[in-house]
């Protein structure tokens, strides 16, 4: 075990010229000033607990049209989507109103034996069948499904568009710090608490990067300690002491030295915390409290075949809930969940790569379906983990949100895939969100499907060959919601930012030309959007 004392480091860091000043066009107040701080981000609420956020970034651009399916649109057809169309079930009319369909497989049939769109009960939309484990969350009133999300003058470059989602400033690559980083800075707790924003993955994503406070990325939490020669307890202490002493050394200010200094400090201050969490496979004992799929209670975090759905009972690979290639993702997901649940961290997130389905995208099964299974089960697992195993964070304190940089072409290309396009879908789950409500007759009192058919849509989905699917550039699904409205709503009404803070976290949030807070026209490309969806 390695213990490095937290060192008086900030005085040193502040003598280094903050090298990224040029990039920081967003004015952020000094992070240490909690005395003057406003807002409630990171502050315990009436229940004594802090509101937290979990993000899952679907990198590569998820095909929103094959995620939340516009089953009621005649343009969502085999003509336009030759090999990838998800049909609606002749026996389960999507036009009916009520709960979302949850096809329970039971012990003997394949987990994903249902190959049609799952009606969402709003008379129009359906879920990809690989997302079937979202249905119980939806029916519990804890999931909102948003379609047609994008931003003005949508870039169809992955790198641009991921940048914009992460830095919170569409069409501006000069801002090189992240939206959630700024939220953590606004909390006044970054650099005070050892952990505020955390990602688990190969590297720290832009959404959590910034030059004034170190957010934390863990590549492999089970290996999070240092080694030494000789590799004994005393040897480790000696090596760590040498490193700590060297870290205090002053040097000429140069590009990147501030970053190194911050992240070395972050390393030192987090080693001890993570040493006390059991991230090992043996520690992965989290199991569902009910047999949701009609089989038996499944492990929440499938990281081995034995923990993958109903496989353990019959060694039947058809009973997997996720593909075997997803185990790394569920390691990360479990670690991120544990960090949120057991530490001071306010925001945590993971990424799922591989959504750039230019060829062989597949339909009810195939490449995209395999990725969606990860998403559906991830949301389900998080819901159950934060209900059954809650410690510092309960499901009602948490919001889980998916991000993806853009959607894909409405028409399939010659390779059985789809190319880069505009608006896509977003999923928001949590114990405190305004979800689906059934009425006394089993119908719908409140739908939680936004922007995809249904009577409540402020800007209706237009159907047919000149409808919504082709209204952007005459080729792509057109947005009617800005991703910043969704994240802004969550950061203010869930995490607790003040309106003033929100304009610093998301620059331009209060600008009427952006129409982020309330319905209006975004003047950049004269597109009407709904403002904030009524999520929470």
């Amino acid at each position, binding site marked *: 075990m390695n213990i490095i004392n937290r060192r008086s480091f900030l005085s040193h860091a502040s003598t280094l010229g903050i090298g990224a000043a040029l990039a920081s066009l967003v004015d952020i107040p000094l992070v240490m000033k909690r005395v003057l701080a406003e807002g409630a981000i990171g502050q315990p609420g009436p229940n004594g607990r802090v509101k937290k956020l979990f993000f899952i970034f679907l990198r590569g651009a998820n095909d929103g049209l094959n995620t939340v399916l516009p089953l009621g649109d005649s343009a969502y057809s085999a003509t336009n989507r030759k090999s990838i169309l998800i049909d609606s079930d002749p026996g389960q009319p999507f036009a009916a109103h009520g709960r979302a369909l949850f096809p329970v497989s039971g012990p003997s049939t394949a987990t994903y034996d249902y190959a049609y769109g799952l009606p969402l009960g709003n008379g129009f939309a359906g879920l990809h069948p690989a997302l079937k484990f979202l249905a119980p969350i939806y029916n519990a009133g804890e999931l909102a499904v948003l379609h047609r999300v994008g931003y003005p003058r949508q870039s169809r470059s992955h790198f641009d568009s991921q940048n914009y989602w992460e830095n919170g400033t569409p069409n501006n*690559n000069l801002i090189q710090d992240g939206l959630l980083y700024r939220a953590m800075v606004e909390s006044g707790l970054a650099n005070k608490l050892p952990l505020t924003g955390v990602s688990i993955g190969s*590297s720290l994503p832009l959404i959590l990067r910034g030059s004034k406070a170190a957010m934390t990325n863990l590549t492999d939490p089970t290996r999070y300690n*240092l080694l030494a020669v000789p590799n004994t307890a005393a040897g480790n202490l000696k090596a760590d002491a040498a490193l700590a002493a060297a870290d205090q050394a002053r*040097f000429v200010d140069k*590009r990147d030295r501030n*970053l190194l200094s911050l*992240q070395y400090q972050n390393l030192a201050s987090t080693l001890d915390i993570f040493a006390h969490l059991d991230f090992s496979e043996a520690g992965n004992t989290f199991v569902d409290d009910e047999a949701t799929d009609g089989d038996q209670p499944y492990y929440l975090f499938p990281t081995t075949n034995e923990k993958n759905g109903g496989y353990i009972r019959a060694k039947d690979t058809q009973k997997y809930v996720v593909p075997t290639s997803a185990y790394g993702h569920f390691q990360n997901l479990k670690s991120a969940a544990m960090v949120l649940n057991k530490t001071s961290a306010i925001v945590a997130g993971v990424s799922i790569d591989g959504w750039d389905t230019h060829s062989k995208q597949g339909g009810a099964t195939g490449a995209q379906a395999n990725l969606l299974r990860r998403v559906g089960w991830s949301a389900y697992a998080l819901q159950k983990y934060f209900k059954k195993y809650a410690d510092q964070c309960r499901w009602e304190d948490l919001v889980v949100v998916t991000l993806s940089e853009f959607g894909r072409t409405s028409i399939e290309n010659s390779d059985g895939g789809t190319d880069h396009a505009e608006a896509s879908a977003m999923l928001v789950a949590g114990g405190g969100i305004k979800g689906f409500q059934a009425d006394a007759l089993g119908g719908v009192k409140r739908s939680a499907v936004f922007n995809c058919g249904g009577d409540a849509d402020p800007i209706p989905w237009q159907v047919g060959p000149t409808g919504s699917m082709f209204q952007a550039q005459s080729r792509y699904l057109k947005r009617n919601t800005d991703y910043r409205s969704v994240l802004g709503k969550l950061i203010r009404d869930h995490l607790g930012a003040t309106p003033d803070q929100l304009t610093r976290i998301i620059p331009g949030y209060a600008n009427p030309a952006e129409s982020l807070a309330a319905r209006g026209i975004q003047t950049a490309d004269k597109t009407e959007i709904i403002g904030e969806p009524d999520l929470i």
Partner: protein
Amino acid sequence: MNSPSFSLHRAAFLAAVVVGTLGLTAAGVPPVLDGVQVDAGGVATVSFEPSPAVTEYQVLRAPRLGAAFAQDSIGTVDGFAWKGSIGTAAAGFFQLRTVELSPAELTATTLLQRISYGPTPDELERVRGIGPEAFLAEQLAPELVNDAIDTTPPGPVWRKVTASGTGSAPKLYIYLDAAGETYLDDFRLVEGAVDDPGKPNLIQNAGFETALGTNWLVSTNLIASALSPDQVHGGSLALHLVSTAAGSSETTSIHQNLPATVVASKTYTLTYWYLAQPGQTAHLTVRLSGSGITSVPSLATGSDSPAPLFSKLTAGTAAINDLRRWHFLHAIQSRLQLTEILRQFWENHFVTQYSKTRDYFDNAGYDTATAGNISTWLEFQENQRWNQAMLRPDVTFLDLLRISAESPAMIIYLDTVGSKGNGSNIANENYGRELCELFTFGVDNGYDQQDIVQISRLWSGWSIELVASNNVANPFAGRTTNYLDPTVVTNRSALTNLLGSWAFNYKAANHNTGIKKVFFQHDAAGNPTTGKLVPARFGAPWAGRDYSLTYAAATGTNTVQEAYRLIEHMANQPFTEEFLSVKLCRLFVHDGFQIGYDFTDDVTSPEEDLVHACMLAWENPTNGGPQGQLRQVLQVIFNSDLFRSHGASQQKVKTPLEFVVSSLRALRAVRPDGSYTVFTDGDLSFALSRMGLMLLFDRMEPNGYPESAEGWISAGTLAERLRFVQGALMPAGMSGKSDGGANTVIDPSGLVQLKAPAAARDSGAIADYFLDLLFPAEGKANLAAYRAVAVHFLDTADDGTTASPFAALTPGSTDYDTRLRGLVAALMTTQRFQEQ
């Protein structure tokens, strides 16, 4: 050439102070005095800011204005402050002077950090000797250097064995556990737990310089053994041990009766050298009779040569990890370091993804291993083609772009392989988009969505085919009809029975035959009007040029020319010149270069000026050759003030690849016998994976791995970097060793013996040696704090608290070796070693 530059120009400002006032103003450029404080006892502290590449800070004092400034003995510099007793009544003036690295020294170290994967001990000496300009000239003309590491087969390696134990019976046995042979030399057996050079050797004829048969007695199974000059560690002869059958005891060994003073109650240390060779399987035993000292080393050795890997790669039988190992070994060992840096740069710029290619061939009908071999071969082929192109003095960017476009790995990666633009088919936009955004113009730089649609049509039909080997350069060839097994009757034409190579293949039937207008402006209805013009921000000679292209409707195989015409056009547009110049500047200078400068601004930054100079060199080469010559652009960068300034060194963070390779190079010196103080078989990919998923040849996203620090540095990835160096510095067998490469062995004690034997027992001198090796550009005076940490580390026991003078440890002992390993690892875990 090592004469330091005495920075008079920087010393020409005064700092004046009246005793009793706190602080003083310093004017001008660094070095900067922070202030003077005088305590009640009259002790003044003059503190100042660190300044780049300073080897010595001098604080000079004058008692009054007009008096001469002088260094006096009343005070000393410690770190970034001067302290001295000036008395309570005195007033004074202080001046700070800095002695900096000479320009030649500075450029030499910057070059070693940027155009090579970091200095090795030998290269540091060599480049300091020949000077930076000769080194640069050599690296810029790799075709003139014979670096034969791919064709020199791995040789045998002398290995030293050290074993301690009790004496038991006074007899020494040597034998193999099977038939086989090896060479042995320079035995020593001394009393005590370490190989103390002061103690007498208890073995006779220990160097095998006189005949066998008297001191050394030979059993029948070893009768073919003899003294030999063929392979010698020391002296002129060694024992060539030839075993016809396994040995086990005195009667089946070469043995020697030791003095009767060797007794079971005492501890002894045995050392000897043996020759390990690739491919050997037998084990050697050298032991004392009974239960005394025993050593059983393997005669086999892993190979640190890229040659066997190169053979597999050219034969198409290599797996992806072979390619990665080859790439590592080249990066570590090659003399052509700039070539290796650029090899990685182009590989990463024209990124392709091994596993996507493998999946493609897996789906096509090959088994996974074969699909992996084909995909590895395709990655290797494009890499080799770039490298061969880079050996031509007038190589252009277009040459490299063409290789990338024709590479089956790219055709699969960005989905042109199945793209059809004929009839009602919509051509796949993936390659068209990334060609503009990532390979040539740069994101949002001179193209829009309509251009991408047009370009994707130009590229429709670019596919691949398994063709006969003499047809790989013929894009119209049909599938090969050569069979691996011509006697097969059913399904003889299955892919797995076809002999040939996968190559670029043009399928004209899939091509979009319509009119195409690329880089046009459009009216409100989306119809093309006139050509796009180069924006005003580029200034002369580019601004205002019409760079549109029009293609008439056409059919047939000649339409393959359409795409070639496009890249020939795009390769030398100002957008490409700008984007590639920016990327090369980020690679060699620092991360802070952007596309989008207004080159017509009155006020420009040095970064903008350098990009502009690169673009002009690209546009108007001084040798009159083709546009886009890479060496012309590189010359501009390497000769720029930005590259050569004092502040320029150590301002980039190493990528995982650079970190791993530079850490091994830093300690790798050649011994007189041809072996090295660092051995690695190149199996290091795991470390890159842990440090941020840097999977070589297998990047999923087409933007390649980032060059910037932000993309790599976080607590988790730093932890993995630190674990790697600690593991690498561990001796074989220590728990945790595999984190630094199970087959990576570093010998810092050997390095000290080789390069700084006089410093071997002096903690201060050892610290100085390694600080210079690891941080040569930082300036000695700026490393005072690291030096204090290092000296303290060396003079402290492994428990971390007990004082234990390094001078008291015996070189060669385990304690000495462990202390030194720990120190080097500690220095390499510091922030400054993350930089290049």
